[in-house]
C-alpha cells in the first residue's frame, strides 16, 4: 500500500511527458496505432471521400487507386470510406463487449475471493460450466435463440464474458486478502464493501486490465466472425467482418474487397496487443514490487 501511494505521488509530481517517457516502446507503438484508428473513427464523416453506402453501378469492382484509394466493392461502394465508418462500429462494439462485462466480472470475482464460502463455491461452479464450452459456440447458441443483430450480440457477450474477469480477480484476491494491510483494515472495523471496493479492488484489477487489451481484440474478431457468419451486423452497415464475408466470393478477381477490411482488423489487433503487452510489463512490475 505504501508503495502504491508513493507511485501516485511520483506521477503527480512529474509532467505528462515524463509518464510517456517511461512507457516501453511496445506501449508507445500500440498507443499510437490505436489512437490513429480511434481518430479515424471519430472523424470518419470528415475524412471519408464518399458515402459508405452509396452504390455506383458505373464503378463496380474498381481496383485500389484514384479516386478510390482502397478500390470499390461489387456494388461500387468506396471501400476506404467503408473501412473508416467500419472503425466506428467495430471499436464501439469492442469497447462495450470488453469493459461492461469486465466491470461486474471483477467486482463479483473480488467479492467471491474475499468472502469465500458458499457464494464463492456457487460462482466458481457457474464459471466452470460456462468455460467448459467453447465461447463462440455458446454465443452462437444464444444468438440462435435471440436472433441475429447487434443488441443480441451485446446480450450474449454480457451473459458470458464476465467469467474470465471474475476468475482473474478472485485469484488475485485470494492472495491479497491474507496480506497485512487487509488484516489492518479489517481490524479497523471498516465495512466489508469498503474493504473490497476501496482497498482490495485497486490491487486485484491489474491483471484484468492487461487481459482486457487482448480481450478487446478478441471481441472485435468475435463480432467480425459473427458478421461473417451472418449472425452479427446486418447489411449494408460497413462492419469489417461483414465486409470480409461480402468479399469472400470475389477473392480471386477482386482481392481488395476482403483484404482492406482485413488489414483494418489486423492493425487494430496489433495496436491493442502491443498496448496489452506494454501494460503487462508495467503493471506487472508495479504489482510485484508491492508484494
Amino acid at each position, binding site marked *: 500500500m505504501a508503495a502504491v501511494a508513493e507511485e501516485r505521488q511520483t506521477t503527480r509530481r512529474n509532467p505528462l511527458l515524463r509518464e510517456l517517457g517511461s512507457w516501453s516502446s511496445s506501449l508507445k507503438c500500440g498507443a499510437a496505432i490505436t489512437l490513429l484508428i480511434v481518430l479515424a473513427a471519430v472523424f470518419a464523416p470528415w475524412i471519408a471521400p464518399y458515402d459508405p*453506402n452509396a*452504390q455506383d*453501378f458505373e464503378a*463496380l*469492382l474498381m481496383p485500389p487507386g484514384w479516386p478510390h484509394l482502397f478500390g470499390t466493392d*461489387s*456494388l*461500387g461502394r468506396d471501400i476506404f470510406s467503408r473501412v473508416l465508418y467500419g472503425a466506428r462500429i467495430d471499436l464501439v462494439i469492442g469497447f462495450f463487449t470488453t469493459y461492461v462485462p469486465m466491470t461486474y466480472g471483477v467486482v463479483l470475482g473480488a467479492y467471491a475471493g474475499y468472502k469465500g464460502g458458499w457464494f464463492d463455491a456457487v460462482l466458481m461452479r457457474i464459471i466452470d460450466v460456462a468455460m467448459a464450452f467453447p465461447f463462440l459456440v455458446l454465443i452462437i447458441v444464444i444468438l440462435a435463440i435471440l*436472433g*441475429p*443483430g447487434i443488441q443480441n450480440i451485446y446480450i450474449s457477450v454480457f451473459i458470458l464474458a464476465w467469467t474470465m474477469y471474475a476468475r482473474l480477480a478472485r485469484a488475485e484476491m485470494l492472495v491479497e486478502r491474507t496480506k497485512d494491510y487487509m488484516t489492518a483494515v479489517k481490524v479497523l472495523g471498516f465495512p466489508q464493501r469498503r474493504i473490497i471496493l476501496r482497498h482490495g479492488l485497486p490491487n486485484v484489477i491489474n491483471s484484468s486490465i492487461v487481459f482486457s487489451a487482448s480481450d478487446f481484440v478478441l471481441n472485435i474478431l468475435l463480432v467480425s466472425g459473427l458478421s461473417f*457468419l*451472418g*449472425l452479427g451486423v*446486418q*447489411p*449494408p452497415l460497413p462492419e469489417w467482418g461483414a465486409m470480409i*464475408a*461480402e468479399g*469472400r*466470393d*470475389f*477473392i*480471386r*478477381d*477482386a482481392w481488395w474487397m476482403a483484404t482492406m477490411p482485413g488489414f483494418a482488423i489486423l492493425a487494430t489487433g496489433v495496436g491493442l496487443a502491443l498496448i496489452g503487452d506494454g501494460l503487462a510489463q508495467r503493471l506487472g512490475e508495479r504489482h510485484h514490487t508491492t508484494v
Partner: protein
Amino acid sequence: MLDKRRLIFAALVLSTALGGASIAASAEDVKRGGTLTVARPEEALTFEPFTPSDNGSIYNIMQICEPLIVADATGKGLEPSLAESWTASADGLTYDFKLRPGVRFSNGKPLTVEDAIFSLQKVADPKASFGFAFDAVKAFDKVDDSTLRITMKRPYATLESALSLFAASIVSKADYEKDPAAFGQKPVCTGAFQVESYERGTQVVLVPNPNYWRKGVDGKPLPYLDKVVLKYVPESNSRVLGLQNGDFDVALVVPLNQANSVKAMDGVSLEVSPSYRLDYVFLNHGKKPFDDKRMRMAVNYAANRDAIMKAVYFGFGEQPNSYMPKVNFWSDKVAKIPYDIEKAKALVKEAGYDGTPIQLMVDTGNAPFRTAATILQQGWQQAGLKVEIVEYDSGTAFSMAQKGEYQAYVSYITSDINDDDELASIQADGTGPTAAFFSNYKNEEVTKLLAQAREVGDKAKRAELYGKVQDIVYNDAYSVPLNFLPYVNGYNNKVKNWHTITVGWWWLRDVWLDK
C-alpha cells in the same frame, strides 16, 4: 371402352428423336471407363425418393431411380422410361401403362407391376410431399403382369409430367418394405447407377448398375463411366480452384462473378444452360404493408433490375416478365414492369405507408441474394420506404416463410417438371396447401383458370390459359421477380456429353471421359 384410345406415345417418340439427335455422339468416338468427379454446392440428404424436396437429393435420385416417364435429354420434353408405352381413354379417365420388359433392379430382381403400384401409391398419398400432383388419381390397378392401369377422378392434363417427377420413381417393394431407413442410404432402383458409398456431408460415390436397360451408342449397356464421385463442396472458391487444378472434372454453380475467369481457363469450358428457375422476392400478401397492391406495385417499380443484372448476375440471365420460371407455356406477351422511382413514390404516398420498417429477409451466407437485397433496399428507400435487411440461415428463413412470418424474402423457385401446372398451382392457386407458396395470394379468377387448364387436353388452349394466368398474377404484383437465372457450370474439356437439363440435373449415364 378401350376402343377410342388416343395414342400419345408416337408424339413423344418423335420429339425425343429430334431432341436427342443433336447431342448424340457417334459410336466410334465414345470411350468407356474412368471416374468422374463432380463438385456440388448442395448436399444430398437422402436417396429415398418419396420425401425430399431439396435439389441436393433430387438430382442424385434421378441418376439412381427411374419413374415410368422421364425428362428427355434436354429436360423440355418427356420420354418413355420404365413404361414402354401407354394409352389413354378418350375421356381422359383411364390410362394403361405397359411396363418395359426385362428390366431388372440393381440387385437383379425383375421389375413387376406390384413394385410400380407400391411406389405410385406412396407418392400419391395425400400426406406425401408430392401427393398434390396425384390429387386427380382414383386408383392404381394391375391389369396383367406387364400392365398398370391408372384410373382418374377427373381428366388431368399433366398426369404424364407428374409421373416424371423424381418422387414417382419406381422402387423395389420388397427392399423398401424390409427397411425404409436403410433404403434411404442404399436404394434399390432401376437407374443407370447405384450407390457404392454415401458419407453425409462429404460425398456420394456412384457405380454402374450392371442390369441397366438403356444402351449406349456403341450398343453396350449404359453408363459409360466406371464411377462417379459427387463431392459436397459448399465453398464456391474451392469448387473453382478444384476445377482449375484438376481435382474436379465438373464444378457446379460457378459464382457468376468468376464465370469469365473460368471461361478463360485452359482446358475448361463454361456451360450456360437454360433453366426452370426464377429468382424472386417473395411478398407476403397476408401481412402489412404488402396486403395492399399499390405497395406491391411500388416495390416492383422501385426494383433496379438493370443494376441487379449487372452487379449480382454479371449479365447472366434474363429480366423476367412472369411470377414463375420460364416453363413450357411461358408467354412473351406479358409486358415487364419498368423501373420507375417516381411512380413508386406516388404509389407509396397513395397507399398511405405509415413508416414501419419493412424487413427484407435473406439467407445467411448467400452473397448474391444479399447484394440483390442491398440494391433493392436502396431503390425502395428512394421510393420512400424504410427497409431493414435481416439474415437468417436458410432453414430458419424458409420455415419462417412457411409459417407466413415474413414480409419480403429474397429467394428462388425451380420446377421439377416441364409443365406449368406444378408451379402455377403451387404459386398462384390460393386454395392449395402452401397458401400460394407462402404468399397468401388469393384470386378466384386465377384459381378458376388453373382448374380449367388442368382439365383441358388441347395444348394451344392450355397455353392461352396459362398466358392469361401469367398476365394476371404478374400484374397483381404477386412478387418482385428478379431474374430467369440459367445454370452456369464449369467442366473440364475431357468430360464429354455434359449437359445440365432445364429441370436442373444431368444425365450422368450419357457422360463419358476422353482421356
